């Protein structure tokens, strides 16, 4: 039952995520490259018709020039057209290792292309969104992995073993489920070090977010294991002398794959939003490292919120990711239900 919505969701997820993975190639500029003379420029307009009314097959842009006697207002300087070239070699000096030599698209040297405008330091937002996606989406994916692993382990053990393991594990799960996750997240974050390197912060975030969400998958998996372990074929294979490990691996865990998959598709967007929230609050990755959360934090300034609508652009990426994953989760759930019915 492949419907159009699912195909659309999967294709846009794939496009967005490969753009993020290959951000060094897709992003036209270095995410940390500052243009102090071009803060808050609006998104570059892409033209096909020049000032004399001639049509161009190859799209081109004009450079933004600050309006005289104004603050952060710009007009297109119509002096020179800069055609957009694809698969260009860049001459920009860059931080080593962050970017490739080749880029998907770009314009000639003095001009810069700002697809999503620039921020207060004149950094290209589009590139920052792509590189920020590595942090936000990466944290979401890794944290989901941790949650599912913990949930699978604890859920399977407590469902399979039962008795004295089951009770404490499930009470603990209840504790984690009843607390509002954002309160818990902030509280746990409060007890952990604040001034550490970016790599450590990233893994700390992943660990905290992943650990907090273990309870729901654990509960679901416990239920499945509990019902699977009393099936006749499990009893039969126990009768033939199969070991616990073999029964778990061969007969019980395969039942949990569907739930794991659905949970993954549901947890990824939630955890991306969790990372975005923490970075937004200044408790996650901080400047100059881009993350969707600290990009959105710019909106907390009144003047930015009111005057520069393109600073909303990172929100679009967040919405796209969650919409995509929720659609996939719905499709998996429907498929599972129709399979079991």
């Amino acid at each position, binding site marked *: 039952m492949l419907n159009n919505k699912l195909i659309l969701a999967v294709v846009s997820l794939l496009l967005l995520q490969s753009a993020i993975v290959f951000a060094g190639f897709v992003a036209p500029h270095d995410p940390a490259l500052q243009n102090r003379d071009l803060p808050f420029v609006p998104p570059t307009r892409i033209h096909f018709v020049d000032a004399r009314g001639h049509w161009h097959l190859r799209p081109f842009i004009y450079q933004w020039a600050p309006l005289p006697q104004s603050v952060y207002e710009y007009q297109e300087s119509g002096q020179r057209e800069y055609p957009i070239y694809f698969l260009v070699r860049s001459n920009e000096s860059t931080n080593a290792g962050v970017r490739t030599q080749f880029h998907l698209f770009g314009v000639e040297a003095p001009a810069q292309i700002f697809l999503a405008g620039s921020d207060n330091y004149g950094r290209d937002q589009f590139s920052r969104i792509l590189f920020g996606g590595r942090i936000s989406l990466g944290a979401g994916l890794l944290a989901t992995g941790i949650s599912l692993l913990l949930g699978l382990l604890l859920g399977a053990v407590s469902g399979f073993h039962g008795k004295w393991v089951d009770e404490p594990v499930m009470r603990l799960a209840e504790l984690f489920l009843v607390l509002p996750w954002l309160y818990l997240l902030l509280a746990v974050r409060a*007890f952990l070090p604040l001034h550490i390197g970016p790599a450590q912060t990233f893994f700390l975030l992943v660990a905290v977010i992943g650990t907090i969400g273990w309870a729901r998958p654990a509960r679901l998996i416990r239920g499945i294991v509990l019902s699977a372990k009393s099936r006749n074929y499990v009893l039969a294979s126990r009768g033939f002398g199969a070991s616990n490990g073999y029964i778990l691996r061969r007969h019980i865990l395969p039942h949990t794959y569907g739930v794991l998959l659905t949970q993954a598709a549901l947890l990824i967007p939630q955890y991306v939003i969790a990372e*975005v929230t923490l970075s937004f609050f200044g408790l996650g990755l901080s400047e100059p490292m881009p993350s969707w959360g600290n990009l*959105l934090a710019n909106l907390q300034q009144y003047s930015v919120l009111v005057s520069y609508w393109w600073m909303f652009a990172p929100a679009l990426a967040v919405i796209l990711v*969650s919409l995509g994953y*929720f659609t996939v989760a*719905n499709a998996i759930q429907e498929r599972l239900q129709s399979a079991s019915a």
Partner: protein
Amino acid sequence: MKYLERRMVHGALLLVSVSVLCFLFTDLAPGNFFDEMKLNPQISSDTVASLRSQYGLDRPLPVRYGRWVHSVMKGEWGYSFAYNSPVRGLILLRAPNTLLLTGCATLIAWLIAVPLGVWTASRAGGWPDRVCMSGTSFCIAVPEMVVVFGLLYFSIRTHALPAGGMFSRGFEQFGFAEKMIDLAKHLIIPVLTLVLASLPILVRHVRASMIEVLNAPFMAAARGHGISRSRVLFGYALPAGANPLISLFGLSLAGLLSGSLLVEVITGWPGLGPLLLEASVSRDLYVVIGVVMSSTVFMIMGNLLADALLVAVDPRVRTE
């Protein structure tokens, strides 16, 4: 009332275990409030050490926990390093604001969700249903942060609503009616955000639970008796399907409180959210624990309310 008593004991146990968990987490922490102070060259390390011992941070974990429990008994709820005052006053000042926000949002969200869910379920598959379902699935994907910024953007652009905070300037001089109107105006954006965030999930659950009931044979019988459509839906189907919805009411509070934290911080609503964030950044340990505990109390109260409703609605729970 056996059932409710059991739930109350359960809630109390939960509260105790949350506090134990909090203290276990504090022990994992490599730094504390006074370590940040050491970075200040004007404060000598002797001062920091004496402050540490004054607040009892150099004691082992069980002693600290015992002291905290004692201070809760005394009605201080721990001591804030940053505000240099008991935590209780800080929380009591802000908790009603959070309660007002989440209370309004819960009420409005349920008042919209129930009729909408019942209506879409009664016409499942029709175009209003399909529009509603795709609308809700879109709303689920939009994070609260984006919603609140979008609303703030429009309210600032159109000057229709105040851009954050809880009161206008000169609130004290207003008359009673003016005060209420002013407060309501400030409530609109945060409440609307929370309603938009929680509504889609509620509508979906109401719809799913109603569809299940509507397919039951007794519904066909009720219709066969010639009972009017609205009476069938709201008089017979809704009570029959209310059970899971009441449990959902308790569970949905957790999401609402989380959303409220974020919205409070962004709109500058003086609730528990900004207090917790501030305390998290400055590592004001007992304030963090106090806020987490009060959010747990909210949750437990909400769940007790749900349990009481369940007892009132479902005779099976009463006789159990």
